[in-house]
């Protein structure tokens, strides 16, 4: 019997000998995450069930990141619910302003995600962790409460689409461009209910941060999960996270069998891909950055769970060094976590951003979802390294969001319009 990596991980979390796509399983969960938007509902439901304890307090993670620093009294109440619950149930993986950051940047960095593990999170971008070879998917608050009680989650075993990337990427092209190009090709429901397996020689050379960006946006194609088979790059990343090889990296890693069954196989030659931009109002509305030179912008946002990592900030700084942000543009930069903020400060990136006329904000999801810290006004246009450009996503219903990689966003901030970095 041949299986995909996704099927193998699911199989390792149930008491069965075999799994098939379409089958319903009740799988053991290795980590269950909630945030300041979704966890308060889960906590309310958990308490309504008169539950005395969570299934395993070390496997529960709570991150306040969407409305921190607290936007208003109501969001302050939400973060307090997380804090109080963590105290009451002795949950040590509670992160908030000062020790945390954006959940999907934070958890891998904290060493909480291991290859082969099964992770659920009440946040749609939980699919990010597939970059480390985990099965990881977004669920709702009721699901989260149920897992805290039972330690399990009900899942429909997904079919897998295999995406094979070949060729050497051009300058200023990376994981964000590959995934935007892919979503542009298959559409926002092109992988509905399915696992997206990213593979091929280009992926084998692709740095971990780019893999996170790719898996992060699987949901924008309707995918249940994104996944990359673990390899030497994965092991090096984990070793750096654990500060040297650790006994914690104990999980058996999985690979797809040669005879594994895929519902479809898609191939892309990345050497033909230019920096990609998703135009309003769907992530699938993708065009090459060079074709959008007439689009003026009011704001550029660099950060988020898609592109708030160290290599993203380095890419942006490379473009911004010794340049000035256009007087027409507000440039906001959000390092993904407190740790990344410190690293960026130490390596001089923060200074470069400020010198260029950018504003460096605390780690938060804030502007990505139109929460706070960079809301767009009527008819304003933004380019953002985030993941969604739905109508009104970042503010006023008449505002527009274009999605890109950090280099394109930085170049556009300098030019005052959408720009390819090589124009500078």
């Amino acid at each position, binding site marked *: 019997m041949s299986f995909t990596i996704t099927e193998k991980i699911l199989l390792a979390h149930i008491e069965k000998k075999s799994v098939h796509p379409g089958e*319903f399983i009740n799988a053991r969960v290795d980590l269950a995450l909630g945030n300041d938007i979704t966890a*308060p509902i889960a906590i309310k439901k958990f308490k*309504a*069930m008169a539950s005395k304890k969570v299934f395993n307090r070390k496997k529960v993670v709570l991150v306040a990141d969407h409305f921190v620093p607290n936007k208003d009294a*109501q969001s302050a109440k939400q973060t307090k619910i997380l804090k109080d619950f963590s105290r009451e149930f002795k949950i040590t993986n509670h992160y908030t302003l000062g020790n945390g950051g954006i959940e999907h940047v934070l958890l891998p960095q904290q060493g909480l995600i291991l290859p082969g593990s099964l992770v659920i999170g009440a946040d749609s971008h939980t699919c990010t962790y597939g970059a480390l070879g985990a099965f990881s998917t977004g669920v*709702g608050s*009721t699901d989260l409460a149920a897992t805290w009680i039972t330690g399990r989650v009900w899942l429909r075993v997904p079919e897998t689409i295999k995406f094979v990337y070949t060729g050497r990427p051009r300058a200023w092209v990376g994981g964000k461009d590959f995934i935007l190009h892919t979503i542009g090709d298959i559409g926002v429901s092109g992988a509905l209910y399915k696992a997206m397996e990213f593979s091929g020689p280009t992926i084998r050379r692709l740095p971990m941060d780019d893999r996170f960006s790719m898996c992060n946006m699987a949901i924008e194609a*309707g995918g249940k999960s994104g996944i990359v088979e673990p390899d030497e790059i994965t092991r090096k990343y984990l070793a750096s996270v654990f500060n040297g090889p650790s006994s914690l990296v104990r999980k058996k890693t999985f690979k797809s069998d040669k005879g594994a069954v895929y519902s479809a196989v898609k191939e892309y030659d990345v050497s033909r891909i230019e920096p990609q931009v998703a135009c309003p109002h769907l992530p699938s509305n993708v065009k090459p950055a060079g074709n959008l030179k007439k689009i003026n912008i009011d704001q550029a946002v660099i950060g988020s769970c898609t592109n708030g990592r160290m290599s993203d900030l380095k890419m942006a700084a490379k473009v911004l060094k010794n340049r000035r942000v256009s007087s027409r543009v507000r440039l906001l930069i959000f390092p993904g976590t407190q740790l990344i903020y410190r690293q960026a400060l130490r390596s001089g990136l923060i200074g470069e951003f400020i010198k260029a006329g950018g504003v460096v904000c605390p780690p938060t999801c804030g502007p990505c979802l139109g929460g706070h810290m960079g809301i767009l006004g009527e008819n304003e246009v933004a380019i953002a390294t985030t993941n969604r450009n739905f109508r009104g996503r970042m503010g006023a219903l008449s505002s527009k969001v274009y999605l890109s990689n950090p280099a394109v966003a930085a170049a556009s901030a300098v030019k005052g319009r959408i720009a390819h970095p090589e124009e500078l």
Partner: protein
Amino acid sequence: MKKIRGKVHKFGNNINTDEIIPAKFLNTSDAGELARHCMEGISLGFAKKVKKHDIIVAGENFGCGSSREHAPLSIKACGVSCVVAKSFARIFYRNAINIGLPILECKDSGKIVPGNKLEINLAKGEIKDLSTGKTYFAQSFPKFMQELINAGGLLSYIRRHYKK
């Protein structure tokens, strides 16, 4: 299971969770408050217009985007009795079933006329347009999902099946 009767409110493809409940309202989880802003990202005033038992009919990939359970919660709390769509985004789909908001996948959803009155038999997946007399059929739920639905949602199901 009783039949549902209500007026059709029609929406297109890829209706996302930011349209169902914009993120600026997510600093609360109060169902009444969420109901007041239901569909505000796409149809301002929907919450005032919608009547108890009314039905949302949409195209493909309804509820795409965020995992926010606030989306099905706001729909349920503003009185909508059922959402019929050609297909649903997966997290919205499980959220709706988990919280007991009736949903039906119907490939003919595009043929249903806005403003018409529907009668839905959930158990049979039968959607009858009372204005035209036409009947459409929804895809039946897999056995496990049907058990969740019959239990009234995930937590009631767990209450039945798990012992402390």
